[in-house]
């Protein structure tokens, strides 16, 4: 994940902001609605008519791309023959949750929409795998490191804005200590450990923070040492988000300077999974990684 990008990206003035809610819930709900519709043998056109919309509105609902009106969902359930009270209540509750604002909404003025989407996915994921070539994963950055990275991307920003951006990043880290934290498995290029972001003292503290985090049972780090030469991750940083729900596909997140790409098509996801498995298989083991980080910290003078 590129730290100059995410919470660092400048808002585009006047750009229409689509509020992004719990995106995963929407995706799940959408998938469920689609299954129910197909099971009932109803076409998207027929479903669209029922809620006074078009075929494409149904398609947007079923792919989680738009907010749900509770009334629409209730009408669709009736059309699909879902009469069981309990079942209806579950689906409707999901629709309501999918419209609940999340904590980062109050930072909307500094966060681009695509990054809010990421925060929604990150909060809902059960496993977060990433390959990092540039910066320490945001979930493990110290405040000083995060500040140094944020300044890189926002040289002209006033202090208060930098503070807000740093605090978004630090708030994300609450994920690490929630009751059922996701498994976070980061493959980190050696360059990340050598680049003295914020100067040697900041970097040394950052390395110690990583070593400390590596002791958490749900946190796995693997360094790809320079000695390995060219490797499978040559394409750059990316993140694989996996959700506990069996029918939700993995989502690949790739950040660019002013936007981000989300991939969830099988063929794309499989390609990135192959790359990250390759990287994990070739990188140092977690225990060797900790020793490597300890040595890197000693060498950061």
């Amino acid at each position, binding site marked *: 994940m590129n730290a100059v990008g995410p919470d660092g990206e400048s808002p585009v003035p006047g750009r229409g902001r689509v509020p992004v809610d719990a995106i995963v819930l929407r995706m799940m709900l959408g998938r469920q609605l689609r299954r129910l519709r197909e099971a009932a043998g109803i076409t998207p056109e027929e479903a669209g008519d029922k809620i006074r919309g078009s075929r494409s509105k149904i398609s947007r609902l079923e792919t989680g791309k738009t907010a749900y009106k509770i009334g629409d969902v209730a009408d669709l359930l009736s059309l699909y023959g879902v009469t069981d009270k309990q079942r209806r209540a579950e689906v409707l509750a999901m629709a309501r949750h999918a419209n609940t604002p999340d904590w980062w909404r109050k930072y909307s003025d500094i966060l681009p929409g695509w990054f809010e989407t990421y925060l929604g996915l990150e909060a809902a994921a059960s496993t977060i795998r990433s390959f990092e070539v540039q910066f320490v994963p945001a979930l493990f950055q110290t405040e000083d490191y995060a500040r140094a990275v944020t300044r890189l991307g926002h040289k002209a920003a006033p202090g208060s804005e930098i503070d807000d951006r740093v605090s978004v990043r630090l708030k994300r880290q609450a994920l690490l200590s929630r009751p059922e934290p996701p498994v976070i498995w980061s493959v980190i290029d050696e360059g990340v450990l050598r680049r003295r972001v914020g100067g040697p003292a900041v970097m040394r503290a950052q390395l110690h923070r990583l070593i400390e985090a590596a002791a958490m049972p749900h946190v*796995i780090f*693997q360094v790809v040492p320079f000695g390995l030469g060219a490797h*499978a991750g040559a394409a750059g940083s990316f993140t694989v988000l996996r959700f506990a729900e069996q029918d939700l596909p*993995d989502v690949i997140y790739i950040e660019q300077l002013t936007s981000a790409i989300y991939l969830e098509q099988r063929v794309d996801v*499989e390609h990135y999974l192959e790359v990250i498995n*390759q990287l994990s*298989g070739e990188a*140092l*083991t977690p*225990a060797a990684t900790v020793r490597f980080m300890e040595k890197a910290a000693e060498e950061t003078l």
Partner: protein
Amino acid sequence: MTSHEASAPRDARTGPLPFDTSVAHQARIYDYLLGGKDNYTADRAAAEELMQIWPEMIFTARANRAFLGRAVRYLAGEAGIRQFLDIGTGIPTAGNTHQVAQAIAPESRVVYVDYDPIVLAHARALLISGQAGATDYIDADLRDTGTILSQAAKLLDFTQPLAVTLLAILNAISDSDGPYAIVARLLDSVPPGSHLVISHGGSDLLGRQALDGLADVADRRIQQKVVYRTHEQVARFFDGTDLVEPGLVRIEEWRPERGADEKGQSSGWCAVGRKR
């Protein structure tokens, strides 16, 4: 000494791993049957085709995973085993051998063995630890017992009883590869009181037509051979051991735990034997 220091040369690999996702692999098919997401189009296509022929396959896979848990709990508990050689590890999921064993006896040591690169990628990160009850991973083929035994000896003490688990892996060893000799070599290297755990698809639990269909799918779609064996043939693997009650039974019938597992009938045999 941690497992890592014991296996320092394997901390970093040289050269790319031989990933091939275009052909189905047993470990990834199994992952798919267990509801995992570390499988590819080829694996799912093969699994779906197999399920057409053998609808109980999905139950059998789940029953097999549940059996692993019950067998390891028995071994770490009642049988007092503290060392495990888990050959044919598969892609890690909930309730891996070391987690089950170390929940009962934290000092338990586990060496995992598999030869699938995707298993290696996961196991090196998720299964290996240098903690008090240490674990290690060996990248080797079951047929290469020499490598397995010599590398396992870095973590396991072969003068003390240990358990060798071979779950749904002898299915990949055809008769021409000498499966009985492989198991005998493993048993010969462990002291009396050691245990052997096997689960195996049962040819006498599947009809002739199903067996032909499964073999056909395996030939066309799966990298490994798939062999099914009868009750009697599976029992032969346990020569030199005394079978723990209830003996060689269907997978779901081995010491079932109250209400824990889903109901169904598997098409596989399993047993735990204690070396005489």
